[in-house]
């Protein structure tokens, strides 16, 4: 980035724009692409579940209980077999994607809004605001998420809404920590001082000077917390304190299959593998986004 010794004004400005560089890096990052494609497919599956599922995920058939998947000698009528109530496993798996993605997205959204507001306020204003937020973060970190979630769900009763809200209200700590330190970093840049000297209001500075420069970190945390929420939902449902039957949830499917695990291990493995693939895809994407959107740290 050296000035041309002759006449720097005649030096052409031909380098790529930040947007072009970002696009180039995205398409050059394999992990990000793989993660995005897998996640994209799963999102499409969730959206088009009614058209993709071969059967009603709730329809029981006592005549066709625990049929094995085709690759274990089953029939194409139920490609992934049926569960202990004779419900089509593939259909439940497809509808289960809705539950996982819904919980992951909404919980990450709620906690993202809470944590970002707290972190940005703490980082930008400092002083007493920072002290209060830091205290709240420490209080929150001292609480074991799973135990608190279990307790709340045990009191309130398990349902999709309760799980989403509980996770949303619990998972904001990482947002707050990361947004606080990112804001602290950006706050000291001279363009923020220039914006203040120009007469910008504090909300405008936060929205148009600070946020665009920390949003890449935010996206990374969103992916992490999405995966976190999805796994926690599965764990809660597995323990019987999350999404309640007969809702098709992957965690619940693992839980329902665990009694048969010795005889029919596929009943646990199929939802387990799908859960693993979803979380892996989200994490690959998060890692990729972190690599791709932080040009300052790379070049």
């Amino acid at each position, binding site marked *: 980035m050296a000035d041309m010794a002759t006449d*720097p004004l005649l030096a052409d400005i031909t380098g790529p724009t930040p947007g072009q560089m970002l696009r180039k890096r995205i398409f050059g990052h394999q992990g990000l692409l793989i993660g995005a494609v897998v996640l994209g497919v799963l999102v499409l599956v969730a959206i088009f579940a009614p058209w993709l599922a071969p059967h009603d995920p709730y329809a029981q058939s006592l005549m066709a209980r625990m049929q094995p998947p085709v690759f274990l000698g089953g029939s194409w009528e139920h490609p992934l077999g049926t569960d202990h109530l004779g419900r089509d496993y593939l259909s439940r798996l497809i509808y289960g994607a809705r539950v996982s993605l819904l919980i992951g997205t909404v919980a990450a959204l709620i906690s993202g809004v809470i944590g970002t507001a707290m972190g940005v306020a703490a980082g930008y204003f400092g002083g007493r605001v920072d002290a209060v937020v830091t205290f709240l973060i420490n209080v929150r970190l001292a609480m074991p998420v799973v135990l608190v979630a279990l307790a709340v769900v045990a009191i309130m009763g398990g349902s999709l809404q309760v799980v989403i809200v509980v996770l949303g209200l619990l998972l904001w700590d990482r947002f707050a920590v990361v947004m606080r330190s990112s804001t602290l970093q950006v706050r000291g840049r001279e363009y923020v001082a220039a914006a*203040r000297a120009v007469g910008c209001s504090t909300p405008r500075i936060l929205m148009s000077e600070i946020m665009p420069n920390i949003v890449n970190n935010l996206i990374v945390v969103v992916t992490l917390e999405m995966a976190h929420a999805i796994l926690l939902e599965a764990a809660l449902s597995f323990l019987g304190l999350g999404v309640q039957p007969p809702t098709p949830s992957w965690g619940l499917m693992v839980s329902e299959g665990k009694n048969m695990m010795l005889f029919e291990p596929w009943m646990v493995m199929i939802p387990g593998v799908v859960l693993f693939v979803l979380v892996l895809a989200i994490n690959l994407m998060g890692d990729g986004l972190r690599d791709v959107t932080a040009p300052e740290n790379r070049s």
Partner: protein
Amino acid sequence: MSDVNKDAPVLELRGVTKTYSVKQGLFGAPKPLTAVNDVTLTLGRGEVLGLVGESGCGKSTLAKILLGLEAPTQGEVLVDGERIDATDRRRLARRIQPIFQDPYSSLNPRKSIEDIVSLPLLVHNVGDAASRTKAVREILDIVGLPARVMQTYPSQMSGGQRQRVAIARALIMKPEIVICDEPTSALDVSVQSQILNLLGDLRSEFGLTYLFISHDLAVIEHLATRVAVMYLGRIVEEADVAGLFDQSRHPYTQALLKSVLTPDPGMGVPDTELGMEYPNPIAPPPGCHFHPRCPAAMDRCKIIAPLPIPTPDGHVECHLFDGDGPEPVRSIS
């Protein structure tokens, strides 16, 4: 002498002091750090006041106070006779604008050049989108950038080009005063003089008043009409530029001038040949803050802080001039 209109100063500082409270270590008690110490300065319309001093002497802190970005602990700042702490921030922003040292940090990397330069217009609700674009094109032309840079981003530009963008942003609202905080010290030597010439041209074109901060007296000589020399937060000498370069009074100024004669191509602190390093501002030396490094230090310099002694074109704070100055009014600090 400069064309000072002493009756109507554009910018006035009266006894401005800024004390930070700095904590040392995890359990250390906070200690006061006086970054700017009782500074009284006056800038007439069209003047260029060069503020010179080593890194860490409080130049940027003073600039931030003038811009309303930091509140002084004591004293007051007046712009056109109006106290800035009583002035609406946006009103102040129309009168006084900064150009910062580092054009790599002073432009938001996520914004296009057009968005950066038009921000002041947007914030002050000037015109519609089309007229703002037109104004951006005009000001870019004035600072010597082609209109096609409007859609580019700071990362695509060189340091000199970026500094021109920063100048365009500072000037688009036609302020009266521009605070240039070391505007060239982050730039390549070949570009520095271009930016300095541009700033000089703009000053006459827009009738600007500059506070021009630098640690380099050569730059100050090029542009300034008056010079204030800062040491550990105090203005130790103030004079017209010709007077200062012809017969500097303060030993610190003389040391700085000597360093100009042996130019240091780096961008760091000037080599003042003062031997000792810059003192810790948390625990400044007693008496005259400069005495440990002063080649002419006398006994009383170690005990009694010197007072501002008026000179024909400014003032000097040094016991060497006690004899022909008025009696001290201020005691040991």
